[in-house]
């Protein structure tokens, strides 16, 4: 699949093509906030944002989602039966997703859709109807460390297309058949364009200020890491709020509960966060992660040790840096990982 060139004055056509049979979304910066918005023309689209405040995971994993409903009415034909809600999966074209966020979806795919018994339809049906057109980062920000965690500013995983801003035009990397169908009318890229993109990739990687090493973490025994004295200090400032979890593109924990109003009830899934004491609270009153230290340790062990062990070396973090920016008490994942790796 040959790469293509998208001239900047052809953006409207491109967005229209992405919008055929789908709704197009792209990040838009409005003052302090950079959020995902529906777009229909090039004027709506920003190309010089850093990254969105919240990750795009709620396209496929909404913060609140109704899964099924029921009627508490023995007399009714459909009473006392759980009925699945129609999964609201509409076709979406997500434009200008950063490679870190796109890679996060690949990791989440491994978790939400594992085998016959673990096939989360609410996730999968939405994913299958989406097209992802990434935007490579030419200028990583100081808190990005994607290249340290099996990702990178021009990483191609998880995308159907990827735009690389060459200055006067975009190189469009064609990464899947779904993507190819949207750019078959664009001119092929020349060798010089490919070379320029490669140069930009190299300079972006060189410009990455934040680095962490995870090689030793892979070698250490789980229990050795778990019992390490470092956790006695890391947790001290943590508020145990849900900020890091909710802004993180790879965090995926949820809570399911039933809500009832009169004779009608519904089962909803909401985002949950493992930093909460309630997350692991058992009905008996026992709490296996009843201390702040155990919960903080869990977060980092899960992302940097348990997931790599369970998923063939994949790291549960894509280096997007949102948690570093947003943590109210400046708990810095880079510092924690460096300690884990020492």
């Amino acid at each position, binding site marked *: 699949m040959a790469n293509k060139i998208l001239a900047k004055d052809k953006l409207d056509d491109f967005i229209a093509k992405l919008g055929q049979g789908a709704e197009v979304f792209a990040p838009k910066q409005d003052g*302090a906030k950079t959020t995902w918005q529906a777009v229909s023309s090039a004027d709506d689209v920003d190309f010089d944002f850093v990254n969105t405040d919240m990750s795009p995971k709620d396209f496929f994993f909404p*913060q609140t989602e109704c899964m099924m409903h029921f009627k508490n009415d023995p007399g009714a034909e459909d009473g006392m039966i759980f009925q699945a809600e129609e999964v609201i999966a509409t076709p979406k074209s997500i434009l200008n997703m950063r490679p870190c966020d796109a890679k996060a979806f690949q990791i989440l795919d491994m978790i939400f859709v594992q085998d016959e018994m673990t096939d989360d339809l609410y996730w999968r049906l939405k994913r299958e109807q989406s097209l992802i057109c990434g935007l490579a980062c030419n200028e990583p920000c100081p808190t990005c460390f994607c290249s340290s965690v099996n990702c990178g500013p021009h990483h191609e995983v998880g995308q159907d297309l990827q735009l690389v801003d060459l200055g006067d035009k975009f190189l469009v990397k064609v990464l899947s058949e779904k993507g190819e169908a949207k750019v078959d009318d664009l001119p092929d890229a020349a060798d010089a364009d490919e070379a320029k993109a490669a140069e930009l990739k190299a300079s972006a990687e060189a410009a990455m200020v934040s680095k962490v090493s995870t090689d030793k973490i892979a070698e250490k025994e789980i229990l050795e890491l778990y019992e390490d004295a470092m956790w006695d200090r890391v947790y001290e*400032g943590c*508020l145990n*709020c*849900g*900020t890091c979890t909710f802004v993180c593109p790879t965090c995926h924990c949820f809570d399911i509960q039933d809500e009832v109003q009169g004779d009608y009830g519904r089962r909803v899934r909401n985002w949950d966060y493992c930093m909460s004491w309630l997350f692991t609270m058992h009905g008996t009153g026992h709490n296996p992660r009843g201390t702040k230290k155990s919960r903080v340790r869990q977060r980092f062990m899960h992302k940097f040790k348990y997931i790599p062990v369970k998923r063939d070396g994949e790291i549960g973090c894509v280096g997007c840096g949102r948690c570093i920016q947003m943590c109210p008490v400046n708990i810095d994942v880079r510092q924690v990982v460096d300690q884990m790796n020492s």
Partner: protein
Amino acid sequence: MQQRTEKIREMAKQLLADGAVDVVIGYRKGTVAMREQPFVAHTPEEADELVWTGFCCNNLANLMPRREDKVGVVAQGCVSRNIVGLIQENQVDRDRVKVIGVPCLGMVSKRKVEAAVDFKPIFEAIEDGDKLIVKGKGFEETLERKQMLRDNCFTCQHRNPVIDDGLVCDKVDDAAGGDIDKMAAPWEELEAGERWAKFNDTFSDCIRCYACRDACPLCYCHVCFVDEAKPQWCGKTQDTADVQTFHILRAFHCAGRCTDCGACESACPMDIKMRLLTSKIEKDVRALYNYTPGMDIKATPPMSVYRPDDPQEFIK
């Protein structure tokens, strides 16, 4: 500011070396711009990392309830009032606390600085007297520090600690200069419909991360009302009624106790101005009960005691 840092280190090191405290709770330099890191120093060597800047935006009294050790804590006016509040509520034992008192010049609002540089990415912000030098992607600008202060710092009425075991510098004027009665509860002037619209709008971005609650020293309940399940007082969904219930009730639980320290707004990742609610309550408490929280360790907060002369016109 540097003087405060040095004196904090000196006092902290002394307290730790003498064994008067087991740890000192303060701040050390953060890894991102405009946010220092709450830090617990266990030894005099670690105490050398303590700093005091205009980016110390949390409330360290938050780390104090349910501790069994003797703590030293670096506290400015609002934080010291929260310490008094926690002592009144029996969450902190005065005999096991040493307060390193800091007369405060106010904290910088990261959000205001971001707005002042048109939201260009910021890499570093440095305080220089009454100026703030901001460096970022392709720019360097100098701003007036006073204009970048947090809203609550701008209208602060108690910048000096109300309780201390030593001050790090001379006291400053208690009042910061802003008029709190003018700035508090801005929606009072509006019609009901407009107030409802503003209220909805203010909390529309809330993601229920509870950073505001968890940053707040008043919120130390073992089981917060939002975590109750039998019955579930407040739903966990993103339905606006659930989100609004959380914020209204939390504000109400802080009535007569909130010192307007601003840690909630500084913690919020979505830049929600929940002080628009709490400032109304704080103003009412002052007007109705003539009470300012945390000023007097022996006082009894109005919400925890009934007095025959309590205002009652609203009760039929």
